[in-house]
Protein backbone atom coordinates (compact mmCIF):
# COMPACT_ATOMS: atom_id res chain seq x y z
CA UNK A 1 0.00 0.00 0.00
CA UNK A 2 1.20 3.48 -0.75
CA UNK A 3 1.39 5.18 2.63
CA UNK A 4 0.02 8.70 2.80
CA UNK A 5 2.47 10.46 5.10
CA UNK A 6 1.09 12.37 8.03
CA UNK A 7 0.59 15.91 6.74
CA UNK A 8 1.42 17.38 10.15
CA UNK A 9 4.86 15.72 10.18
CA UNK A 10 5.73 16.85 6.69
CA UNK A 11 4.55 20.35 7.49
CA UNK A 12 6.78 20.40 10.55
CA UNK A 13 9.74 19.10 8.57
CA UNK A 14 9.30 21.77 5.92
CA UNK A 15 8.90 24.48 8.54
CA UNK A 16 12.05 23.33 10.31
CA UNK A 17 14.06 23.48 7.11
CA UNK A 18 12.53 26.45 5.35
CA UNK A 19 10.88 28.56 8.04
CA UNK A 20 7.84 30.67 7.37
CA UNK A 21 6.59 28.85 4.31
CA UNK A 22 3.84 26.54 5.59
CA UNK A 23 0.32 27.47 6.53
CA UNK A 24 -0.70 24.34 8.40
CA UNK A 25 -2.71 21.38 7.24
CA UNK A 26 -5.88 21.01 5.18
CA UNK A 27 -7.86 18.25 6.84
CA UNK A 28 -10.17 15.93 4.92
CA UNK A 29 -10.16 12.46 3.45
CA UNK A 30 -6.54 12.88 2.51
CA UNK A 31 -4.98 15.55 4.72
CA UNK A 32 -2.73 17.88 2.75
CA UNK A 33 0.09 20.25 3.55
CA UNK A 34 -0.80 23.86 2.84
CA UNK A 35 2.11 26.02 1.78
CA UNK A 36 2.68 29.57 0.63
CA UNK A 37 2.61 29.87 -3.18
CA UNK A 38 5.91 31.72 -3.50
CA UNK A 39 7.75 28.93 -1.68
CA UNK A 40 6.45 26.03 -3.78
CA UNK A 41 9.60 25.59 -5.83
CA UNK A 42 11.86 25.60 -2.82
CA UNK A 43 9.65 23.16 -0.91
CA UNK A 44 9.36 20.81 -3.88
CA UNK A 45 13.10 20.79 -4.26
CA UNK A 46 13.42 19.98 -0.58
CA UNK A 47 10.80 17.22 -0.76
CA UNK A 48 12.54 15.65 -3.72
CA UNK A 49 16.07 15.74 -2.32
CA UNK A 50 15.53 15.11 1.41
CA UNK A 51 16.67 11.59 2.35
CA UNK A 52 13.76 9.66 3.81
CA UNK A 53 11.23 11.60 1.78
CA UNK A 54 12.54 11.55 -1.79
CA UNK A 55 9.36 12.31 -3.67
CA UNK A 56 10.70 11.48 -7.11
CA UNK A 57 7.37 11.05 -8.90
CA UNK A 58 5.02 13.94 -9.54
CA UNK A 59 1.65 12.27 -9.97
CA UNK A 60 -0.54 15.20 -10.82
CA UNK A 61 -0.90 18.94 -10.72
CA UNK A 62 -4.48 20.14 -10.37
CA UNK A 63 -5.99 23.58 -10.37
CA UNK A 64 -9.24 24.09 -8.47
CA UNK A 65 -11.31 27.27 -8.44
CA UNK A 66 -12.84 27.94 -5.02
CA UNK A 67 -14.20 31.32 -6.15
CA UNK A 68 -12.50 33.32 -3.39
CA UNK A 69 -9.21 31.66 -4.16
CA UNK A 70 -7.55 29.37 -6.64
CA UNK A 71 -5.91 26.24 -5.35
CA UNK A 72 -3.10 24.24 -6.91
CA UNK A 73 -2.81 20.66 -5.70
CA UNK A 74 0.36 18.62 -6.08
CA UNK A 75 0.11 14.86 -5.64
CA UNK A 76 3.58 13.54 -4.95
CA UNK A 77 4.72 9.95 -4.63
CA UNK A 78 8.02 8.38 -3.83
CA UNK A 79 8.61 5.25 -5.87
CA UNK A 80 11.55 4.46 -3.63
CA UNK A 81 9.74 4.46 -0.31
CA UNK A 82 6.22 3.94 -1.67
CA UNK A 83 4.70 6.82 0.22
CA UNK A 84 2.88 9.91 -0.90
CA UNK A 85 1.96 13.39 0.17
CA UNK A 86 -0.43 16.05 -1.04
CA UNK A 87 0.71 19.62 -1.29
CA UNK A 88 -1.74 22.48 -1.64
CA UNK A 89 -1.19 26.13 -2.25
CA UNK A 90 -3.69 28.94 -2.51
CA UNK A 91 -3.60 32.03 -4.66
CA UNK A 92 -6.04 34.84 -3.86
CA UNK A 93 -5.34 37.10 -6.81
CA UNK A 94 -7.85 36.10 -9.47
CA UNK A 95 -6.61 38.61 -12.02
CA UNK A 96 -2.99 37.59 -12.21
CA UNK A 97 -2.49 34.42 -10.20
CA UNK A 98 0.99 33.01 -10.32
CA UNK A 99 2.85 30.09 -8.78
CA UNK A 100 6.48 29.14 -9.35
CA UNK A 101 6.97 26.39 -11.89
CA UNK A 102 8.37 23.06 -10.72
CA UNK A 103 9.52 21.88 -14.16
CA UNK A 104 13.10 22.27 -12.98
CA UNK A 105 12.38 19.70 -10.26
CA UNK A 106 10.18 17.25 -12.17
CA UNK A 107 10.07 17.25 -15.95
CA UNK A 108 6.66 15.63 -15.64
CA UNK A 109 5.23 18.98 -14.63
CA UNK A 110 5.82 20.38 -18.09
CA UNK A 111 2.58 19.54 -19.87
CA UNK A 112 0.49 19.52 -16.70
CA UNK A 113 1.43 23.06 -15.80
CA UNK A 114 0.66 24.19 -19.31
CA UNK A 115 -2.74 22.57 -19.01
CA UNK A 116 -3.53 24.19 -15.68
CA UNK A 117 -2.37 27.53 -17.06
CA UNK A 118 -4.53 27.10 -20.14
CA UNK A 119 -7.73 25.98 -18.47
CA UNK A 120 -7.47 27.60 -15.05
CA UNK A 121 -5.42 30.66 -15.84
CA UNK A 122 -2.68 30.25 -13.27
CA UNK A 123 0.69 31.41 -14.55
CA UNK A 124 3.61 29.19 -13.63
CA UNK A 125 6.58 31.46 -13.34
CA UNK A 126 9.76 29.98 -14.75
CA UNK A 127 8.08 27.48 -17.06
CA UNK A 128 10.16 27.19 -20.23
CA UNK A 129 7.27 27.13 -22.68
CA UNK A 130 4.10 28.42 -21.08
CA UNK A 131 1.61 28.49 -23.95
CA UNK A 132 -1.97 27.40 -24.37
CA UNK A 133 -2.09 23.65 -24.85
CA UNK A 134 -5.65 22.40 -25.24
CA UNK A 135 -7.15 25.58 -26.61
CA UNK A 136 -5.86 27.71 -29.41
CA UNK A 137 -3.73 30.83 -29.14
CA UNK A 138 -5.93 33.85 -28.75
CA UNK A 139 -8.71 32.07 -26.87
CA UNK A 140 -10.39 34.36 -24.37
CA UNK A 141 -10.82 33.20 -20.79
CA UNK A 142 -10.08 30.05 -18.88
CA UNK A 143 -12.88 27.47 -19.12
CA UNK A 144 -12.36 25.57 -15.89
CA UNK A 145 -12.88 28.67 -13.78
CA UNK A 146 -16.25 28.86 -12.10
CA UNK A 147 -17.00 32.27 -13.59
CA UNK A 148 -16.47 31.06 -17.15
CA UNK A 149 -19.81 30.31 -18.74
Amino acid at each position, binding site marked *: *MTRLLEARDISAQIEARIPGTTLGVVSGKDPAVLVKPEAVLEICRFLKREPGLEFDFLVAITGVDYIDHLEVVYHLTSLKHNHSVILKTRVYDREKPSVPSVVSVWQGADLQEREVCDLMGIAFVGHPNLKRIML*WEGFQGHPLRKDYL
Partner: protein
Amino acid sequence: MAFRTEPITVNFGPQHPSTHGVFRMRVTFDGEVIVDMEPVFGYLHRGSEKLAEERTYTQVITLTDRLDYVASMSNNLAYVLAVEKLCGINPPERAQYIRVIMAELVRIASHLMGLGFLLNDLGAFATPLMYMFREREKIMDLFEMVCGARITFSYMRIGGVAEDLPPEFYPAMTRFLKEMPGYIDEYEALLRENEILLARTKNVGILQPDKAINGSVSGPNLRGSGVPWDLRRADPYEIYDRFEFDLPLGKVGDTYDRFLVRLEEMRQSVRILNQAMEQIPKGPVRASVPMLVRPPIGDAYAHVEAPKGELGFYVVSDNSIAPYRCKIRSPSFINLTVLRDMVLGWKLADMIVIFGSLDVNMGEVDR
Protein backbone atom coordinates in the same frame (compact mmCIF):
# COMPACT_ATOMS: atom_id res chain seq x y z
CA MET B 1 28.90 25.48 -56.79
CA ALA B 2 28.83 24.59 -53.15
CA PHE B 3 25.98 22.48 -51.85
CA ARG B 4 23.82 24.11 -49.28
CA THR B 5 21.40 22.16 -47.15
CA GLU B 6 18.70 23.44 -44.92
CA PRO B 7 16.38 21.79 -42.43
CA ILE B 8 12.75 21.37 -43.41
CA THR B 9 9.80 21.57 -41.08
CA VAL B 10 7.11 18.97 -41.65
CA ASN B 11 3.74 18.78 -40.03
CA PHE B 12 2.81 15.31 -38.87
CA GLY B 13 -0.86 15.27 -38.17
CA PRO B 14 -3.44 16.08 -36.99
CA GLN B 15 -4.53 13.80 -39.79
CA HIS B 16 -1.90 11.18 -40.38
CA PRO B 17 -2.18 7.39 -40.45
CA SER B 18 0.14 6.82 -37.52
CA THR B 19 -0.64 9.58 -35.08
CA HIS B 20 -3.25 7.32 -33.48
CA GLY B 21 -5.95 9.92 -33.72
CA VAL B 22 -5.46 13.62 -34.00
CA PHE B 23 -2.06 14.25 -32.52
CA ARG B 24 0.13 16.73 -34.27
CA MET B 25 3.89 16.96 -34.30
CA ARG B 26 5.76 19.85 -35.84
CA VAL B 27 9.03 18.24 -36.77
CA THR B 28 12.18 19.82 -38.15
CA PHE B 29 14.31 17.45 -40.17
CA ASP B 30 17.89 17.69 -41.20
CA GLY B 31 17.69 15.17 -44.01
CA GLU B 32 15.95 12.29 -42.31
CA VAL B 33 17.21 13.17 -38.85
CA ILE B 34 14.96 14.96 -36.39
CA VAL B 35 16.50 18.08 -34.98
CA ASP B 36 13.42 19.51 -33.34
CA MET B 37 9.94 18.38 -32.49
CA GLU B 38 7.04 20.19 -30.94
CA PRO B 39 3.92 18.29 -29.95
CA VAL B 40 0.66 20.14 -30.50
CA PHE B 41 -2.39 19.03 -28.57
CA GLY B 42 -6.03 19.86 -28.32
CA TYR B 43 -7.62 18.65 -31.54
CA LEU B 44 -9.87 16.31 -29.58
CA HIS B 45 -10.41 18.55 -26.57
CA ARG B 46 -14.01 18.22 -25.43
CA GLY B 47 -13.69 19.74 -22.01
CA SER B 48 -14.61 16.58 -20.16
CA GLU B 49 -13.57 18.11 -16.85
CA LYS B 50 -15.88 21.07 -17.31
CA LEU B 51 -18.71 18.87 -18.55
CA ALA B 52 -18.38 16.72 -15.44
CA GLU B 53 -19.21 19.73 -13.29
CA GLU B 54 -22.64 19.93 -14.89
CA ARG B 55 -23.59 16.28 -14.44
CA THR B 56 -24.60 14.17 -11.50
CA TYR B 57 -22.03 11.81 -10.08
CA THR B 58 -23.55 8.83 -11.90
CA GLN B 59 -23.81 10.63 -15.21
CA VAL B 60 -20.11 11.40 -15.21
CA ILE B 61 -19.44 7.68 -15.72
CA THR B 62 -20.55 8.04 -19.34
CA LEU B 63 -18.02 10.84 -19.80
CA THR B 64 -15.21 8.65 -18.57
CA ASP B 65 -16.09 6.08 -21.27
CA ARG B 66 -15.00 8.58 -23.85
CA LEU B 67 -11.53 9.19 -22.45
CA ASP B 68 -9.49 6.17 -23.43
CA TYR B 69 -12.08 4.60 -25.64
CA VAL B 70 -10.20 1.35 -26.08
CA ALA B 71 -10.11 0.77 -22.33
CA SER B 72 -13.32 2.29 -21.02
CA MET B 73 -13.66 -0.17 -18.15
CA SER B 74 -10.50 1.12 -16.47
CA ASN B 75 -11.76 4.67 -16.76
CA ASN B 76 -15.09 3.71 -15.20
CA LEU B 77 -13.25 1.96 -12.42
CA ALA B 78 -10.92 4.84 -11.58
CA TYR B 79 -13.80 7.28 -11.43
CA VAL B 80 -16.10 5.18 -9.26
CA LEU B 81 -13.21 4.42 -6.94
CA ALA B 82 -12.65 8.13 -6.43
CA VAL B 83 -16.33 8.79 -5.69
CA GLU B 84 -16.57 5.78 -3.40
CA LYS B 85 -13.52 7.00 -1.52
CA LEU B 86 -15.17 10.39 -1.20
CA CYS B 87 -18.45 8.90 0.09
CA GLY B 88 -16.93 6.07 2.09
CA ILE B 89 -18.85 3.37 0.21
CA ASN B 90 -17.60 -0.19 0.16
CA PRO B 91 -18.79 -2.23 -2.81
CA PRO B 92 -19.68 -5.90 -2.22
CA GLU B 93 -16.98 -8.46 -2.75
CA ARG B 94 -18.53 -9.96 -5.88
CA ALA B 95 -18.68 -6.52 -7.46
CA GLN B 96 -15.01 -6.04 -6.73
CA TYR B 97 -14.19 -9.32 -8.45
CA ILE B 98 -16.28 -8.41 -11.46
CA ARG B 99 -14.51 -5.06 -11.65
CA VAL B 100 -11.12 -6.69 -11.59
CA ILE B 101 -12.18 -9.15 -14.28
CA MET B 102 -13.39 -6.31 -16.49
CA ALA B 103 -10.29 -4.22 -15.88
CA GLU B 104 -8.00 -7.09 -16.81
CA LEU B 105 -10.02 -8.00 -19.89
CA VAL B 106 -9.84 -4.43 -21.05
CA ARG B 107 -6.11 -4.40 -20.40
CA ILE B 108 -5.68 -7.31 -22.77
CA ALA B 109 -7.86 -5.60 -25.36
CA SER B 110 -5.94 -2.35 -25.06
CA HIS B 111 -2.54 -4.01 -25.25
CA LEU B 112 -3.65 -5.98 -28.29
CA MET B 113 -4.56 -2.77 -30.02
CA GLY B 114 -1.43 -1.00 -28.85
CA LEU B 115 0.82 -3.76 -30.14
CA GLY B 116 -1.11 -4.12 -33.36
CA PHE B 117 -0.79 -0.45 -34.17
CA LEU B 118 2.86 -0.42 -33.17
CA LEU B 119 3.45 -3.15 -35.73
CA ASN B 120 1.43 -1.16 -38.23
CA ASP B 121 3.66 1.84 -37.57
CA LEU B 122 6.61 -0.42 -38.20
CA GLY B 123 5.18 -1.03 -41.64
CA ALA B 124 3.91 -4.56 -41.25
CA PHE B 125 0.96 -4.04 -43.53
CA ALA B 126 -1.96 -4.62 -41.11
CA THR B 127 -1.37 -8.35 -40.76
CA PRO B 128 -0.40 -8.41 -37.07
CA LEU B 129 -3.08 -5.83 -36.39
CA MET B 130 -5.73 -8.05 -37.92
CA TYR B 131 -4.50 -11.04 -35.95
CA MET B 132 -4.80 -9.05 -32.77
CA PHE B 133 -8.21 -7.76 -33.65
CA ARG B 134 -9.31 -11.37 -33.91
CA GLU B 135 -8.83 -11.79 -30.16
CA ARG B 136 -9.98 -8.31 -29.28
CA GLU B 137 -13.23 -9.17 -30.99
CA LYS B 138 -13.73 -12.03 -28.54
CA ILE B 139 -13.18 -9.70 -25.61
CA MET B 140 -15.66 -7.24 -27.10
CA ASP B 141 -18.18 -10.10 -27.34
CA LEU B 142 -17.67 -10.80 -23.66
CA PHE B 143 -18.30 -7.15 -22.82
CA GLU B 144 -21.37 -7.15 -25.00
CA MET B 145 -22.78 -10.04 -22.98
CA VAL B 146 -22.12 -8.20 -19.77
CA CYS B 147 -23.33 -4.70 -20.54
CA GLY B 148 -24.66 -4.62 -24.09
CA ALA B 149 -22.03 -2.20 -25.36
CA ARG B 150 -18.81 -2.89 -27.19
CA ILE B 151 -16.87 0.35 -26.78
CA THR B 152 -18.51 2.71 -24.31
CA PHE B 153 -19.50 0.39 -21.52
CA SER B 154 -20.65 2.58 -18.59
CA TYR B 155 -20.75 -0.69 -16.71
CA MET B 156 -19.41 0.33 -13.31
CA ARG B 157 -21.64 2.09 -10.85
CA ILE B 158 -20.92 3.91 -7.65
CA GLY B 159 -21.06 1.09 -5.12
CA GLY B 160 -20.70 -1.80 -7.53
CA VAL B 161 -21.45 -2.68 -11.12
CA ALA B 162 -24.59 -2.22 -13.17
CA GLU B 163 -25.61 -5.87 -13.42
CA ASP B 164 -24.45 -9.31 -12.51
CA LEU B 165 -22.62 -11.46 -15.02
CA PRO B 166 -25.07 -13.26 -17.31
CA PRO B 167 -24.99 -17.09 -17.30
CA GLU B 168 -23.66 -17.27 -20.88
CA PHE B 169 -20.63 -15.26 -19.79
CA TYR B 170 -19.02 -18.14 -17.91
CA PRO B 171 -18.57 -20.67 -20.73
CA ALA B 172 -17.44 -17.94 -23.14
CA MET B 173 -14.94 -16.66 -20.60
CA THR B 174 -13.62 -20.15 -19.89
CA ARG B 175 -13.09 -20.72 -23.59
CA PHE B 176 -11.36 -17.36 -23.97
CA LEU B 177 -9.03 -18.03 -21.06
CA LYS B 178 -8.16 -21.40 -22.52
CA GLU B 179 -7.41 -20.05 -25.98
CA MET B 180 -5.72 -16.76 -25.16
CA PRO B 181 -2.31 -18.06 -23.95
CA GLY B 182 -1.97 -19.96 -27.22
CA TYR B 183 -2.65 -16.83 -29.18
CA ILE B 184 -0.11 -14.84 -27.18
CA ASP B 185 2.43 -17.58 -27.89
CA GLU B 186 1.52 -17.26 -31.56
CA TYR B 187 2.23 -13.52 -31.57
CA GLU B 188 5.47 -14.11 -29.80
CA ALA B 189 6.50 -16.83 -32.25
CA LEU B 190 5.65 -14.60 -35.18
CA LEU B 191 7.16 -11.38 -33.96
CA ARG B 192 9.70 -11.75 -31.20
CA GLU B 193 12.60 -12.97 -33.32
CA ASN B 194 11.73 -11.18 -36.54
CA GLU B 195 15.00 -9.80 -37.86
CA ILE B 196 13.54 -6.59 -39.21
CA LEU B 197 11.49 -5.96 -36.08
CA LEU B 198 14.60 -6.40 -33.96
CA ALA B 199 16.62 -4.07 -36.17
CA ARG B 200 13.91 -1.46 -36.07
CA THR B 201 13.14 -1.53 -32.34
CA LYS B 202 16.20 -2.68 -30.41
CA ASN B 203 17.97 0.24 -28.74
CA VAL B 204 15.63 2.66 -30.48
CA GLY B 205 14.14 5.37 -28.30
CA ILE B 206 15.78 4.42 -25.04
CA LEU B 207 14.07 5.90 -22.01
CA GLN B 208 16.36 5.78 -19.00
CA PRO B 209 14.63 4.86 -15.73
CA ASP B 210 15.54 8.10 -13.97
CA LYS B 211 14.29 10.15 -16.91
CA ALA B 212 11.09 8.13 -16.98
CA ILE B 213 10.42 8.70 -13.30
CA ASN B 214 11.30 12.37 -13.51
CA GLY B 215 8.99 12.75 -16.51
CA SER B 216 6.09 11.16 -14.60
CA VAL B 217 5.89 8.34 -17.12
CA SER B 218 3.74 5.48 -15.89
CA GLY B 219 2.39 2.13 -16.92
CA PRO B 220 4.06 -0.29 -19.32
CA ASN B 221 6.34 2.50 -20.54
CA LEU B 222 7.77 2.94 -17.04
CA ARG B 223 8.09 -0.81 -16.54
CA GLY B 224 9.70 -1.07 -19.97
CA SER B 225 12.47 1.10 -18.54
CA GLY B 226 12.92 -1.38 -15.73
CA VAL B 227 11.17 0.44 -12.90
CA PRO B 228 9.12 -2.09 -10.90
CA TRP B 229 6.16 0.21 -10.32
CA ASP B 230 2.65 -1.08 -10.82
CA LEU B 231 -0.21 0.33 -8.82
CA ARG B 232 -1.77 -3.11 -8.67
CA ARG B 233 1.29 -4.11 -6.67
CA ALA B 234 2.42 -0.84 -5.10
CA ASP B 235 -0.98 0.42 -4.01
CA PRO B 236 -3.43 -2.46 -4.39
CA TYR B 237 -6.90 -1.07 -4.94
CA GLU B 238 -9.94 -3.32 -4.91
CA ILE B 239 -8.78 -6.88 -4.31
CA TYR B 240 -5.57 -6.98 -6.29
CA ASP B 241 -3.64 -8.08 -3.22
CA ARG B 242 -5.34 -11.48 -3.48
CA PHE B 243 -3.86 -12.37 -6.85
CA GLU B 244 -0.51 -13.70 -7.82
CA PHE B 245 1.12 -12.12 -10.83
CA ASP B 246 4.54 -11.04 -12.00
CA LEU B 247 5.64 -7.62 -13.11
CA PRO B 248 7.32 -7.95 -16.49
CA LEU B 249 10.21 -5.50 -16.64
CA GLY B 250 12.34 -4.24 -19.49
CA LYS B 251 16.10 -4.13 -19.26
CA VAL B 252 17.18 -1.34 -21.58
CA GLY B 253 14.07 0.77 -21.85
CA ASP B 254 13.97 0.70 -25.64
CA THR B 255 11.03 0.23 -27.94
CA TYR B 256 11.56 -3.50 -28.03
CA ASP B 257 11.34 -3.72 -24.24
CA ARG B 258 8.09 -1.79 -24.19
CA PHE B 259 6.81 -4.18 -26.83
CA LEU B 260 7.80 -7.23 -24.81
CA VAL B 261 6.43 -5.81 -21.56
CA ARG B 262 3.01 -5.39 -23.14
CA LEU B 263 3.14 -8.88 -24.59
CA GLU B 264 4.03 -10.35 -21.21
CA GLU B 265 1.46 -8.26 -19.35
CA MET B 266 -1.27 -9.89 -21.38
CA ARG B 267 -0.09 -13.25 -20.05
CA GLN B 268 -0.16 -11.95 -16.51
CA SER B 269 -3.65 -10.58 -17.06
CA VAL B 270 -4.80 -14.01 -18.16
CA ARG B 271 -3.25 -15.36 -14.97
CA ILE B 272 -5.14 -12.87 -12.84
CA LEU B 273 -8.35 -13.61 -14.73
CA ASN B 274 -7.96 -17.33 -14.10
CA GLN B 275 -7.56 -16.73 -10.39
CA ALA B 276 -10.43 -14.27 -10.27
CA MET B 277 -12.80 -16.63 -12.08
CA GLU B 278 -11.90 -19.33 -9.58
CA GLN B 279 -12.28 -17.21 -6.48
CA ILE B 280 -15.32 -15.16 -7.42
CA PRO B 281 -17.94 -15.47 -4.66
CA LYS B 282 -21.73 -15.34 -4.90
CA GLY B 283 -23.61 -12.35 -3.59
CA PRO B 284 -24.93 -8.93 -4.49
CA VAL B 285 -23.13 -6.81 -7.03
CA ARG B 286 -24.18 -3.38 -5.78
CA ALA B 287 -24.13 -1.72 -2.40
CA SER B 288 -27.27 0.21 -1.58
CA VAL B 289 -26.41 3.68 -2.78
CA PRO B 290 -28.98 6.44 -3.33
CA MET B 291 -29.78 7.34 -6.93
CA LEU B 292 -28.38 10.82 -6.42
CA VAL B 293 -25.12 10.63 -4.55
CA ARG B 294 -24.27 13.61 -2.38
CA PRO B 295 -20.77 13.08 -1.05
CA PRO B 296 -19.69 15.10 1.97
CA ILE B 297 -17.62 18.23 1.37
CA GLY B 298 -14.02 17.34 0.67
CA ASP B 299 -11.75 15.96 -1.99
CA ALA B 300 -10.36 12.56 -2.85
CA TYR B 301 -7.88 11.16 -5.31
CA ALA B 302 -8.08 7.59 -6.51
CA HIS B 303 -5.97 5.92 -9.12
CA VAL B 304 -5.84 2.65 -10.99
CA GLU B 305 -3.26 0.98 -13.17
CA ALA B 306 -4.99 1.51 -16.49
CA PRO B 307 -3.54 -0.20 -19.57
CA LYS B 308 -1.78 3.03 -20.52
CA GLY B 309 -0.50 3.88 -17.07
CA GLU B 310 -1.64 5.54 -13.87
CA LEU B 311 -5.14 6.85 -14.39
CA GLY B 312 -6.30 9.01 -11.53
CA PHE B 313 -9.42 10.99 -10.70
CA TYR B 314 -9.28 13.88 -8.30
CA VAL B 315 -12.85 14.67 -7.30
CA VAL B 316 -13.84 17.69 -5.18
CA SER B 317 -17.30 17.70 -3.66
CA ASP B 318 -19.36 20.59 -2.30
CA ASN B 319 -22.14 18.30 -1.09
CA SER B 320 -24.23 18.85 -4.19
CA ILE B 321 -25.33 16.25 -6.71
CA ALA B 322 -22.59 17.18 -9.20
CA PRO B 323 -18.84 17.12 -8.64
CA TYR B 324 -17.44 20.55 -7.90
CA ARG B 325 -14.27 19.66 -9.76
CA CYS B 326 -13.29 16.46 -11.46
CA LYS B 327 -9.71 16.33 -12.58
CA ILE B 328 -8.49 13.51 -14.75
CA ARG B 329 -4.86 12.50 -14.42
CA SER B 330 -4.54 10.87 -17.79
CA PRO B 331 -1.53 8.63 -18.37
CA SER B 332 -1.39 9.09 -22.15
CA PHE B 333 -1.13 12.85 -21.81
CA ILE B 334 1.58 12.84 -19.19
CA ASN B 335 3.55 10.05 -20.91
CA LEU B 336 3.94 12.40 -23.86
CA THR B 337 6.03 14.76 -21.73
CA VAL B 338 9.14 12.78 -22.55
CA LEU B 339 8.35 12.32 -26.25
CA ARG B 340 10.41 15.27 -27.44
CA ASP B 341 13.54 14.17 -25.63
CA MET B 342 13.04 10.63 -26.88
CA VAL B 343 12.80 11.41 -30.58
CA LEU B 344 15.48 14.09 -31.01
CA GLY B 345 18.33 12.78 -33.13
CA TRP B 346 16.42 9.79 -34.46
CA LYS B 347 15.25 9.30 -38.00
CA LEU B 348 11.77 9.91 -39.28
CA ALA B 349 10.89 6.22 -39.31
CA ASP B 350 12.16 5.86 -35.74
CA MET B 351 10.04 8.74 -34.55
CA ILE B 352 6.87 7.04 -35.73
CA VAL B 353 7.88 3.84 -33.99
CA ILE B 354 8.85 5.56 -30.73
CA PHE B 355 5.57 7.40 -30.67
CA GLY B 356 3.72 4.17 -31.41
CA SER B 357 5.56 2.36 -28.63
CA LEU B 358 4.32 4.89 -26.06
CA ASP B 359 0.81 3.67 -26.91
CA VAL B 360 -1.16 6.83 -26.32
CA ASN B 361 -4.82 7.32 -26.92
CA MET B 362 -5.87 10.72 -28.13
CA GLY B 363 -9.26 10.58 -26.45
CA GLU B 364 -7.37 10.53 -23.21
CA VAL B 365 -4.66 13.00 -24.14
CA ASP B 366 -6.99 15.82 -25.05
CA ARG B 367 -9.95 14.88 -22.85
